[in-house]
């Protein structure tokens, strides 16, 4: 595995108004690896990834993606850099077809042929979406909607995909399906950064993991090491 540093978060503070959520948090993502962020509710996991995609900008510290300083970058400028984002709650354009959803994912591509090629690439990867291309996104099952949200984020062929609770609220068979997709994406050479409440499952597939607690870095190790760390097991993995 190449060790190119993709995402470099250095000592960021994030606050919502008077309420500070993150305190000097560090995190790194290298090319082609899966990084999981785990921790109890209110630890600031979602805030951390939202600060990367411009939805809750950091007040202090630095966030770099490759050679770009993205600390203060507006949310709509993030996709063009090669960062895909799959928000919590399977946010799709419910009244549009599967195909239109994907085309909107390639909104920044002006060239029609390139856009269609990108749609075809995503359909290749997710044949299930191809079968439902003319269906309204709102009529899909929860798992299929999540698949569509991931597919949409892949339209610009991102090097880094950021996922907020990808398995939340899904039926068990869809949870398996989503985790299979995540492994597939790593095989394609993409880096993944995910927040996941299913901590044991996330650490099983993750190369590295970060444990946050009350807005501070608590542990940082390989996924396997965190899984066997007695403190982590006791606090977050139910023994």
């Amino acid at each position: 595995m190449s060790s190119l540093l993709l995402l470099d978060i250095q000592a960021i503070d994030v606050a919502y108004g008077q309420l500070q959520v993150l305190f000097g948090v560090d995190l790194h993502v290298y090319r082609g690896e899966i990084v999981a962020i785990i921790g109890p509710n209110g630890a600031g996991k979602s805030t951390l990834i939202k600060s990367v995609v411009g939805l809750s900008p950091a007040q202090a510290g630095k966030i770099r993606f490759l050679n770009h300083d993205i600390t203060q970058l507006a949310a709509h400028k993030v996709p063009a850099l090669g960062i895909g984002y799959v928000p919590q709650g399977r946010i799709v354009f419910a009244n549009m077809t599967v195909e239109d959803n994907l085309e909107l994912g390639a909104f920044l591509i002006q060239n029609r042929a390139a856009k269609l090629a990108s749609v075809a690439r995503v359909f290749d990867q997710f044949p299930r979406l191809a079968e439902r291309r003319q269906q309204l996104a709102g009529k899909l099952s929860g798992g299929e909607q999540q698949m569509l949200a991931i597919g949409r984020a892949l339209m610009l062929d991102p090097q880094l995909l950021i996922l907020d609770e990808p398995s939340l609220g899904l039926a068990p068979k869809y949870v398996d399906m989503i985790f299979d997709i995540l492994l597939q994406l790593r095989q394609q050479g993409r880096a993944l950064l995910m927040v996941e409440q299913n901590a044991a499952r996330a650490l099983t597939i993750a190369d590295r993991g970060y444990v946050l607690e009350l807005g501070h870095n608590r542990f940082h190790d390989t996924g396997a090491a965190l899984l066997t760390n007695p403190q982590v097991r006791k606090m977050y993995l139910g023994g």
Partner: protein
Amino acid sequence: MHQQIIVNITLPVFLLICAGIAPLLVSQYHLSFGLQVFMMLALAQSWNLISGMTGYISFGQVVFFGIGAYTAAILLPLGLHWLPVIGVGTLMAILLALPLGLLTLRLRGPYFAIAMLGLNEVVRIIATLWVDLTNGGSGISLSPTLLPDLSTNYYSMLILAAVACGIIWVVHGSRFGLELRAIREDEAAAEMVGVNTTYAKFVAFVGSAAIPGAVGTVFTMYNSYINPTSAFAPDLNIQMIVMVMLGGSGTFWGPILGTVLVMGLREILWASLPALHMAILGVILLIIVLFLPNGVLSLTSPKIRIRFDLTK
């Protein structure tokens, strides 16, 4: 594809030509009615641009109409020609929309709607209290010698309606239209795929303010009298909303159909049942809203909807 061209290019051109030669053929009464139809059509399409296309429901769109109406009422007595007055009215509406857009478009959903409603009330009260400029609640009455004749006003209104429809026609099929559609569907998701939502909403808002500004000036020239209640009439705003929703919001043909239906119904009912006509109209609207929430156009077959490019 052929049929789409016939419907979306030939039909509008044909309607425009009919409307263009109408003054030669019809009575003053019908010309006046036609002017009112075009006025409502222009206003409905302007509401369609901000609210139908982005989903930001505005109860205060009429504030721009009122600003245009007062601009004309104040400038015409100074001896200005009516043509530049239309331009100044448009400009005033845009100048009001610039700061307003920056302030109100941060608000989402009902908050935006209520902010716009409140704003229209504030401006109406200013117009009532600023007696030196507006003559207060008594309003401004203009001498007919200052004003263009009925058929000139008719053509002005026709051109404004055509421009408003043209804007929707162009936006609907454009990349910008896609941005607005994405915002209406899900603003957060739109941002995630790279749409600059703040900028797109702002452009749509300012654009949608310009049309009522111009329409307001021509209304003053046509009506020769305005007061704060007729210029900043919440009722007029409700009518725009009804016409767009009735026909089908976010589409090109929807507001056209809605305007013609409401104005036609009102005219027929007013002539035959003067006492009850508003009540009957209200009931009809209630039925449509309850049973056809996507507008009358949703009754048509999918084939027709595609032909008319009515899919949202």
